[in-house]
């Protein structure tokens, strides 16, 4: 029999529980502050006029948009931004379509030679050729130092292929078989039926590819380098600024406020990612859950 005092004992939280809850909230707020404050500091530096840098903590001291205006007129910055956008859009679409296409047959359980084909792909993921052999390969194809080289290198992403494969394996067979009975050919089957059904995974993989390509600077560092400024991407331009290599591009930034220019360029480069971020959050959670259950 359950007496009233038993119920009260159930409902009232003990002191230890309240401590635990308070501790949790406290730590979470602490971590959130740890994330937000440096970003606010960055934005403040990008808006502070020169001369006030010594006083900047977390809000701007004074206000100026001159740093942003400078970058909108800087031809090297605009070239890099355009390159980044082109590269990101191109790589995302081509890479994900190729990988999704390849994953579809591999999800059929009785595909002939399935194991050897899988091993064939997984080896490329495990054993990389290294910096120099890739560089020689790009040189032979004549694309070293151009954006095409980076584009071609980024297409092969076996991890995404495996994600797609495991998702397709979980699709209901009846829909597919019904479509096949209707006489739809394979390409239409894939693009009209399978792909829309796999939208969560596809969208989250696309988002990860976008973020990865937008942020990557090491491939540009190794395979394009500072001798071909027309092929720089935005993240490489920011790397160049942050490392305080005196820019020999279109104009010289005075070092009296290199900090402000660095901060402004970083803010501009992060804005596109932040714009897409909220839309993708709902896809991410379901996509990761599905992916992690494979």
């Amino acid at each position, binding site marked *: 029999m359950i007496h009233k005092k038993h119920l009260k004992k159930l409902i009232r939280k*003990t002191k*230890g*529980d309240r401590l635990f809850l308070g*501790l949790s*909230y406290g*730590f*979470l707020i602490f*971590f959130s502050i740890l*994330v937000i404050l*440096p970003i606010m*500091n*960055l934005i403040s530096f990008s808006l502070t006029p020169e001369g006030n*840098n*010594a*006083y900047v*903590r977390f809000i701007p001291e004074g206000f100026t948009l001159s740093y942003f205006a400078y970058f909108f007129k800087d031809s090297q910055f605009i070239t890099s931004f355009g390159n980044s956008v082109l590269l990101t859009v191109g790589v995302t679409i081509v890479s994900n379509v190729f990988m999704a*296409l390849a994953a*579809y047959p591999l999800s059929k359980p*009785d*595909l*002939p030679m399935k194991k050897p*084909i899988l091993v064939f*792909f997984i080896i*490329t993921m*495990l*054993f*990389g*050729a*290294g*910096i*120099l*052999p*890739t*560089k*020689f*390969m790009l040189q*032979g194809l004549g694309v070293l130092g151009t954006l095409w080289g980076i584009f071609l*290198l980024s*297409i*092969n992403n076996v991890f995404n*292929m*495996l994600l797609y494969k495991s998702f397709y394996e979980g699709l209901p067979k009846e829909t597919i078989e019904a479509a096949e009975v209707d006489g739809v*050919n394979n390409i239409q089957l894939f693009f009209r039926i399978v792909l829309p059904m796999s939208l969560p995974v596809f969208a989250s993989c696309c988002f990860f590819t976008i*973020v990865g390509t937008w942020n990557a600077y*090491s491939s540009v560092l*190794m395979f394009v380098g500072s001798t071909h400024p027309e092929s720089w991407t935005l993240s490489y331009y*920011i790397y160049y600024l*942050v*490392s*305080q290599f005196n820019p020999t591009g279109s104009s010289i930034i005075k070092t009296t406020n290199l*900090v402000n220019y*660095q*901060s402004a360029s970083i803010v501009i480069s*992060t804005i596109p*990612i932040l714009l897409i*971020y*909220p839309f993708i959050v709902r896809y*991410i959670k379901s996509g990761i*859950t599905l992916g*992690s259950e494979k």
Partner: protein
Amino acid sequence: MELLAKKVKLIRPKQEGYWHRLGIKLKKYLPIMAFIVPAAFMAVLFGYIPLIFLLAAFKTNFNLSIYTPFQALFSPNWSFVQFTKIFGENADEFFLALKNTLVINGIKLVLIFPIPIIIAIMLSEVKNATLAKLFLIILCLPNFLSWPTVIGIWQNFFRQSDGVINSIFGTNIGWLTSDNGPNGISLFRFFVISFDAWKGCGWNSIMFYTAIVSIDKSYYEAAELDGANKFQQTLRLTLPSIFPTIALMFIMNITYILSCGFDEINLLANLDPNWKLYETTLDYYLYNQALAENADFSYATALGLFNSTVSLTFMLVGNSFCKKFLHRGLW
């Protein structure tokens, strides 16, 4: 006699049936297998053909002055001297880089690995769904910033002149140098580890968070009825339930122990020459030998081959470990 004829008759149709079935399968699947061709072409072009150039590791000198890379492969100076160089002539710089990598990854494994778990546990305590989502969004944000962005953000804090830390405390310490303050400590490892933690912990906690959220609520109610407080619940219920996930992430971290993240190290190494010389890791050493200093291409290729082979071994061992103890592959 009749029995023998019957046996022989039974054998042959089986063989015909096998090829017959294979033929039907192929006919059914061949159009679909054409889907694999684009990805396979890229995989061959950038995954397999560059492996030819790994042969450059087996030469005494890979001279690209007048030969193309492919022509230089055919010159008759084969030897294993590059590999003995790794352990002989250049042993101190190689082992220094290796030691730095292992130390940094080891500290990360011990100190930073528990943090996503703690974050996930705390997040699961938040009952309000929108608040939990808000926290998640904020905490996952650094993961989507590029490394130059992250280092740029933290440089503003730790810069010596106009740095926020120096201006708040009124000090003038050169945090980002190798010889700072009265004790001359180099803070390189601290920065590498903490920036990596700042960037990655929020995202890594999602994995544990989904695992915790999927634990059946009735277990918690039963535990509470039995009189367990929150701490005991966490220790005895949550942690063992997500143990497979923890073990998987742990084994994955050990598998990748030789790779430390080239992006971050390259950015930090540019700040001080002593860091570049003494504190950088294996990935940076590989990059330096391949592109920056020497133009000793065969040695750089040998290093890359050695590194790839060792990583592959680690991954295969890690995968078999996973399969044996957790009954699932790494990927």
